[in-house]
């Protein structure tokens, strides 16, 4: 995308975002007979229903029993199958936290979790169905790969790569109606563990993940119009985190803003902070997200705005951080 502000209608693709992941999973399942899918009464909502249609004998709906689903997935993985389980993030990561920990991670089972309606993307459903704590809980599961794709294309590729790799994987997405970030499924280079640089810049780096990435890119373009050079990193993999890309951003800009549809405590921002602190390099970090609060009801796009995680909120944060002096010298008196 050119520096400055240009966006063209031609940049969007024609398959609805919601269809893409279901389509890709079905393609993969055609080739790999070991893939089975499980859901807890959410086949329609999580779009895994497509799989059900094409492979009914490999699809299992356990009803509203998420922990049972995880346990069964563990057992199935033990027989050599590759279970893909899907439910809302709040249930996958929080209700099932112990199952993910003990039956999937500790026992190293090859189960792939697609956690949908994460963050505040389920807007109108309210706090009980939001999940702004899953990065925190899933990050801390040893052996778990944690991914937050930015759009449906990334989700599809992430899922394909997750199925290729050995070990449990947690992929967290929204409702599947999020706008596309990329032009098409092969217009970008996606590797689990490697952040994607969407915009070059040297004044400040915005590291975003999941459904906030679109707004981060937009913010960079707007700020670019104001004369600022903003780097944008799509940090789709929370764990293993791309230390190299983060350190480079630290080195080149010394100013970092993280954006996540998640509590700012123990989420992606905190993971980035770990990297910054370990490096010993001076750098300012501002974390955008829910400021240790529970989310409210609202349309999901309005919530992005409300919590200042949209382009406007990020631009505001950029302006704030650019004004900050973080060097030690606050004393402007001449030495005598």
């Amino acid at each position, binding site marked *: 995308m050119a520096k400055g502000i240009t966006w063209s209608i031609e940049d969007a693709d024609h398959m609805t975002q919601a269809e893409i992941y279901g389509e890709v999973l079905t393609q993969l399942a055609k080739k790999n007979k070991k893939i089975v899918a499980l859901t807890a009464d959410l086949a329609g909502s999580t779009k895994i229903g497509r799989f059900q249609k094409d492979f009914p004998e*490999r699809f299992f709906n356990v009803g509203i029993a998420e*922990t049972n689903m995880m*346990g069964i*997935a*563990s057992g*199935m993985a*033990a*027989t050599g199958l590759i279970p893909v389980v899907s439910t809302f993030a709040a249930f996958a990561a929080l209700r099932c936290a112990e199952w993910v920990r003990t*039956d999937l991670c500790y026992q190293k089972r090859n189960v792939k979790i697609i956690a949908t309606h994460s963050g505040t993307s389920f807007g109108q459903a309210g706090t009980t169905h939001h999940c702004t704590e899953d990065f925190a809980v899933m990050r801390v599961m040893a052996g778990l790969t944690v991914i937050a794709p930015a759009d449906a294309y990334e989700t599809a590729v992430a899922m394909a790569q997750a199925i290729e790799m050995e070990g449990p994987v947690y992929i967290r997405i929204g409702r599947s109606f999020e706008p596309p970030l990329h032009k098409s499924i092969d217009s970008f280079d996606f590797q689990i563990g490697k952040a994607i640089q969407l915009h070059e810049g040297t004044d400040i780096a915005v590291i975003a993940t999941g459904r906030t990435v679109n707004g981060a890119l937009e913010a960079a373009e707007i700020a670019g119009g104001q004369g600022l050079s903003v780097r944008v990193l799509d940090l789709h993999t929370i764990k293993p985190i791309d230390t190299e890309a983060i350190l480079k951003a630290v080195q080149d800009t010394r100013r970092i803003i993280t954006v996540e549809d998640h509590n700012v405590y123990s989420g992606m921002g905190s993971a980035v902070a770990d990297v910054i602190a370990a490096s010993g390099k001076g750098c300012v970090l501002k974390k955008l997200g829910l400021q240790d609060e529970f989310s409210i009801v609202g349309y999901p796009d309005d919530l992005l705005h409300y919590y200042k995680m949209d382009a406007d909120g990020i631009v505001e944060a950029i302006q704030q951080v650019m004004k900050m002096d973080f060097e030690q010298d606050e004393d402007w008196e001449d030495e005598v």
Partner: protein
Amino acid sequence: MALDAAELKRLKQKARQIREDIVKITYTCGGAHIGGSLSQTDIMVALYYKYLNIDPKKPDLANRDRFILSKGHGGAGHAVILGDLGFFDTDLLKDFNKTGSPFGMHLDYLKVPGVDASTGSLGHGFAIGAGMALGARLQGKKWRTYVVLGDGELQAGPIWETAMAVPHFKLTNMTTIVDRNMLCIDGSTEEIMALEPLRAKWESFGWKVLEIDGHDFNEICGAIDEANDEKEKPVVIIAKTKKGKGVDFMECDKKWHYAGLDEAMMNKALESLKKGAK
């Protein structure tokens, strides 16, 4: 069909030997879930010495039967059997509970050959077993899955999610046994959180229920035979047992859920076992 006299004797002797080993290991490792290990022994012996199609030299044998001790705290009792069968050198057991040992209160499937799942957190093993049975059927495998549940464990909600799912998915390629020793940590299951009418509960969930004396090999084997042959509904065997079975001062006493033994107590226990084995 009743067991023949030789078979019965073999199993009973093995059960007594295992109980002795459990007592000894409780002494050496500083403490174990001895009550539950003793109550489950006859069931475990029947399974491991008569039914399970396994090979101690090939713990990862693809078509072996699977066994899940969902009441994972019975690990000491389980380890002793696996050692006796030759899954590993029994010498390793003397470091039970020590730093870096593959053996702790709850057996680690990644570290102990012969263990199919790491259980301990109650309510998990049942679902894992169901998943194995489901995976077996989907891939056309003929091996069987056995799950042993604790009765206190039945107080946990997740158990009933699986109890609904197994008949729903018609998983008749698994056999479920409840070690009904009537006790959980804080006391009688009926006082803490009553399970009765337990038979009615399972039946209403779509199971065929067999209630047996969990210390009578004829009944145990008869029930397992029936369960393995049953094709219509999955079978749960509610085995009435005594926590601490075989050691007179431990039987049915909640304090022996988890305990240590000094040498004197160990000898008392061994003696009680010898006496009872008439």
